[in-house]
């Protein structure tokens, strides 16, 4: 789970970089700002690739959980634990999706709105994970 979370965090970082790097690398010092994040994001497929990789990772992990549940290997307390972890992974996936959507928004206002929602979610999860991590439990 920690590795999966790290993957999601890396993907979120990649999505942010994918939107910023081309503008920094290509634009001359006096160039005007691009009209929207989407106009920058549309010059690269790095953000789509990163988003697809994250979605695929979650789909693969989910398939394994579902198959094990189908044959009764996951049940009782383990099922409760798996559901909790799945919920947490889905929350991180939601953040990755918001980061992608923000990078491809039609306007900066929409991008800011998406970013604010993502940050709010991130803080919510962080607040829930931190006390457990400090107590020595696996997040």
């Amino acid at each position: 789970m920690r590795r999966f979370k790290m993957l999601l965090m890396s993907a979120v970082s990649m999505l942010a970089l994918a939107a910023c790097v081309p503008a920094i690398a290509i634009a001359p010092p006096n160039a005007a700002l691009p009209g929207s994040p989407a106009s920058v994001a549309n010059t690269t497929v790095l953000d789509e690739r990163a988003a697809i990789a994250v979605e695929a990772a979650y789909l693969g992990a989910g398939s394994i959980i579902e198959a094990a549940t189908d044959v009764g290997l996951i049940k009782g307390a383990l099922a409760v634990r798996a559901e909790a972890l799945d919920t947490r992974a889905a929350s991180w996936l939601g953040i990755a999706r918001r980061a992608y959507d923000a990078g491809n928004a039609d306007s900066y206002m929409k991008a800011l709105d998406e970013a604010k929602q993502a940050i709010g979610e991130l803080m919510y999860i962080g607040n829930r994970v931190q006390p457990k991590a400090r107590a020595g439990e696996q997040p």
Partner: protein
Amino acid sequence: VKFDFVKLVSAVSAALQAAEAVSDIADTIADTLEGDDQAELKTALAELRAENDAARARRSAKLRAAS
């Protein structure tokens, strides 16, 4: 050493099922990522999102039933 045959068959069956699912996903993703067409990638991403949402809902129901 005692073997629970049913459990053993279940475990192997689950492993094969999961391996098949992951292999299918990996093939699909590999095909998708080979392309550079942005529209195609966006479509693939949208389909993956929808698939993930459906799978998550189905899995959640199964896990709750099993708990």
